């Protein structure tokens, strides 16, 4: 079940099921099991992860990340685990099949419009989209090409890492592919970070400027807040 290109493993009621789909199910079970077990034993671990994602997203979008954290945090965790799970012997990364990255970037495409309409109202969002009216075709083209490039970036990184490891393994097996597999571990996590950061950037360009937070003394504060004094524990 560990081939480079995806292949059909079995069929359910006449629908062919690929090995990447089976890997996705196993990955979902692993993530849920890890979340439940770590949540019971050491909830601080989950809190650290959620805080890290919250800081990341709100730093990029320059506004509080409450609305966006469920979607973008789930994307980050899903893509991170999906890219890494290909290193396990019998499993294959779901993202090395072209369908998974396309599905994720279609989700991001619709979420840009969804958050714009929900947070700003339909006519305000449309006015924001088509503000100089002659730029509207350029805006539509850039939306489509951003979505395509988001999916192909993720797919290309994962698939080419797999092909190169397979080639090196065919030439010089046993220990020689190991540094390349370490590299694919690193690029897997990096591509998950890049996908989430780019999705956050795309969503924030669809929204208006964030409201300025006015301090007690009437001065404007930046978001995220910059501390001038050290924190007391």
């Amino acid at each position, binding site marked *: 079940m560990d081939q480079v290109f995806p292949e059909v493993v079995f069929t359910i009621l006449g629908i062919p099921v690929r090995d990447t789909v089976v890997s996705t199910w196993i990955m979902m079970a692993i993530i849920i099991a890890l979340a439940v077990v770590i949540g019971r034993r050491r909830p601080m671990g989950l809190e650290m992860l959620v805080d890290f994602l919250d800081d990341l997203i709100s*730093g990029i979008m320059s506004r509080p990340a409450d609305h966006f954290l469920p979607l973008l945090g789930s994307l980050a965790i899903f893509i991170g685990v999906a890219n890494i799970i290909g290193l396990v012997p019998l499993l294959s990364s779901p993202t090395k099949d072209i369908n998974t990255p396309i599905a994720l970037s279609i989700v991001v495409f619709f979420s840009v419009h969804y958050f714009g309409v929900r947070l700003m109202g339909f006519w305000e969002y449309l006015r924001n989209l088509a503000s100089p009216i002659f730029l509207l075709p350029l805006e539509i083209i850039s939306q489509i090409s951003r979505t395509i490039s988001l999916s*192909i970036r993720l797919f*290309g990184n994962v*698939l*080419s890492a797999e092909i190169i490891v397979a080639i090196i393994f065919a030439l010089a097996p046993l220990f020689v592919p190991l540094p390349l597999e370490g590299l694919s571990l690193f690029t897997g996590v*990096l591509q998950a970070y*890049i996908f989430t*950061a*780019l999705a956050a*950037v795309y969503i924030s360009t669809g929204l208006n400027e964030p409201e300025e937070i006015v301090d007690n003394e009437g001065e404007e504060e930046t978001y995220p807040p910059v501390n001038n004094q050290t924190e007391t524990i």
Partner: protein
Amino acid sequence: MAEMDPGTLITLVTIFIAGIGMVVGAITPAIVEGKAVEKALESIARQPDSAGDIRTTLLIAMALLESTAIYVLLVILILLFANPLLDRFF
């Protein structure tokens, strides 16, 4: 060029283009990313307080620049290992 069987001709041209394409597709993003890092390091040296902001922007910009190199690598790997054009003549 002698009368070659189309499969051989396609394979020959593919190997030739893969070599040239990969070389050009590896040099160009490397040069451009080097320029981006140079400017980012210069601006961190000028204003060390904004290092975190600059680092985030630099990372996102490098991913966008790297993606064109990945497109080239992907097309060449597909041409070499899963060439769809060879099936039309066999």
